[in-house]
């Protein structure tokens, strides 16, 4: 039973894909995924997530590179022989087949007898908590229920890899959270190596063991959620995953672990060289998350004028305009009577700690 097995490893080895139209959708992607891991493919629309998923499933033959599942190079195998389960973004349930026929479809294709098929379909429907829906047609189910059926159908073939393409995009917020928990539970039970495509960073960070961040077909970073969030390796990752203020500046002095940067906004701060060594005098972009800034009373940090204050429930966000005219957001936890500052108030801001400001060389 797949539920007991460990799940097979998946290696994406230097995969590049160029569509016949000439579009370079995926460029030299390397992923080394261990058996049983949950991986999130995170990136903005059009960055090549679906393309990569379809390459792994075998619907698209990549222009270059290899896909290795377990010990097998699967590049020459058609999709129906890869044992890769896929849940499509629109579920793609067979509209003319009942729910249990949908779930049993893959078993029928494997020539398994009808009684076993029905028993297995029922077991999977129990697993996804839809035990009473087996005779209905897909359109008689809600979106979230259809999604669970799609999941059960993919699990029925005991796939060695499970691929989910934006599985929760069509669900409302509460249902999405339920389904995220559900999928994670099922994945833990079955131990199937799982790849989830998403452009929702919270989803990626909360569900995955590791997150692969893609941008324009390239892999920007592949690491644990805290790596990606706390130690972003590129400017793109820093700004795409979580909100971040971008402040331009010039490197005053730098070694491997810290750099002193003169911000255009008018202060010298210590920042972490996030993507390798920085050269003195070079222009950099410093990224500081709104929650990593603080108001300071002394002469450290940089000056600014409060523009707008947004009390957002648990946090209060102030928008501050700095000396060079750029806007910076600062977010504070609302503890008791956190004061909101008047528009026009002069303030000074500084990072909470030097390690929380990331400096990236400005390319251009």
């Amino acid at each position: 039973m797949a539920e007991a097995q460990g799940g097979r490893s998946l290696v994406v080895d230097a995969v590049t894909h160029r569509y016949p139209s000439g579009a370079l959708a995926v460029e030299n992607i390397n992923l080394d995924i261990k058996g049983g891991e949950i991986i999130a493919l995170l990136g903005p629309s059009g960055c090549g997530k679906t393309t990569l998923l379809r390459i792994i499933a075998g619907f698209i033959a990549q222009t270059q590179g290899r896909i290795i599942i377990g010990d097998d190079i699967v590049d020459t195998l058609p999709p129906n022989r890869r044992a890769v389960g896929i849940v499509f973004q629109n579920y793609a349930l067979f509209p003319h087949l009942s729910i249990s026929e949908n779930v049993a479809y893959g078993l029928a294709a494997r020539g398994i007898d009808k009684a076993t098929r029905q028993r297995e379909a029922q077991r999977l429907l129990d697993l996804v908590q839809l035990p009473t829906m087996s005779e209905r047609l897909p359109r008689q189910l809600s979106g979230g229920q259809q999604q669970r059926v799609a999941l059960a159908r993919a699990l029925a073939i005991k796939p060695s890899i499970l691929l989910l393409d934006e599985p929760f995009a069509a669900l409302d917020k509460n249902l999405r959270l339920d389904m995220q928990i559900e999928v994670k539970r099922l994945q833990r039970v079955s131990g199937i190596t799982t790849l989830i495509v998403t452009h929702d960073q919270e989803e990626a960070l909360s569900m995955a063991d590791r997150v692969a961040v893609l941008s324009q077909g390239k892999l920007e970073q592949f690491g644990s959620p805290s790596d990606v969030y706390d130690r972003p390796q590129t400017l793109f990752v820093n700004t795409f995953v979580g909100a971040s203020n971008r402040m331009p500046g010039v490197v005053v002095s730098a070694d491997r672990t810290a750099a002193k940067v003169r911000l255009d906004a008018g202060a010298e701060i210590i920042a972490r060289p996030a993507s390798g060594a920085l050269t003195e005098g070079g222009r950099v972009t410093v990224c500081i998350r709104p929650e990593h800034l603080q108001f300071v009373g002394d002469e450290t940090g940089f000056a600014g004028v409060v523009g707008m204050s947004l009390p957002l429930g648990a946090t209060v966000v102030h928008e501050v305009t700095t000396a060079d005219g750029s806007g910076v957001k600062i977010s504070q936890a609302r503890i008791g009577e956190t004061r909101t500052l008047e528009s026009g108030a002069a303030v000074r801001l500084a990072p909470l700690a030097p390690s929380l400001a990331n400096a990236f060389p400005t390319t251009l």
Partner: protein
Amino acid sequence: MGAAPASRDVTSYGMGLAVPLALFFLVFFVAPLLQLLWLSLHNDTAALHWGLGQYLHFLTDPFSLSVLGSTLLLGAEVTAVCLVLGFPIAWLYQRVGPRLQTIIILIVLLPLLTSVVVRTFAWIVILGRQGIINATLQSLGIINTPLKLLYTQFGVVIALAQVQMPLMTLPLITALSRIDSNLDDASCSLGAGSWRTFFKIVLPLSLPGVIAGCTLTYAAAITAFITQSLIGGGQMLFMPMYLYQQASTLQNWPFASAISIIFLLAVLAVVSVFTTLGRMSRGYGGA
């Protein structure tokens, strides 16, 4: 999809817009039809004596019945040929690039762009004793005496199939293009081969198109007066020509009217079988 309630809403305030067409139908379709019915209920050519004699004559005359039977059979044969040849074209259309799609559509539509008479004469040239097929086969030494292709059932079926092909292919293309291509992929990733995917997924979901195509092709094939008479020649008699002879040559209007009414009812019966099948299959595909 919520197609049913939506279309109901549309018709509820669209009734007024249908009035001109309804009037047109009343004057040029319903009125002549009633006149036809009236005429057919007379026993003599002068239409003076009421009676069911014309119908009795038709239904007890083996010759008339055989004409009706061969016409309905002809329709079935043409429909079958169109379906068998048209489905692969429609299927291919879904799987090729945009340039090839344009070419396929052009080939499919081409018959509609030339007159039926021209197309039928082209078939006479192809099928004749000294026609393209016989000439080719003879020059290759495959046959010695020319095959009889023209004025045969085979010839009529082939020519009609070509002439009516768009009526089959276009609904099929529409039906196939409405099938989510992810369903193919889903089926394949679940371990099904191409044949299983075709028979379990593509074919059932394209059934509404198959039925629409069959209905149109069938109705067009059995009423195709020109092609039937030119390719069939004098030897083969089908209902439209039979009717024409009775009305025009023999001036037996009441009998001709009875033939029309019987033919009409026979066609309606066949078409309603198709539509019933269609309604049953509409259980599918709505999602």
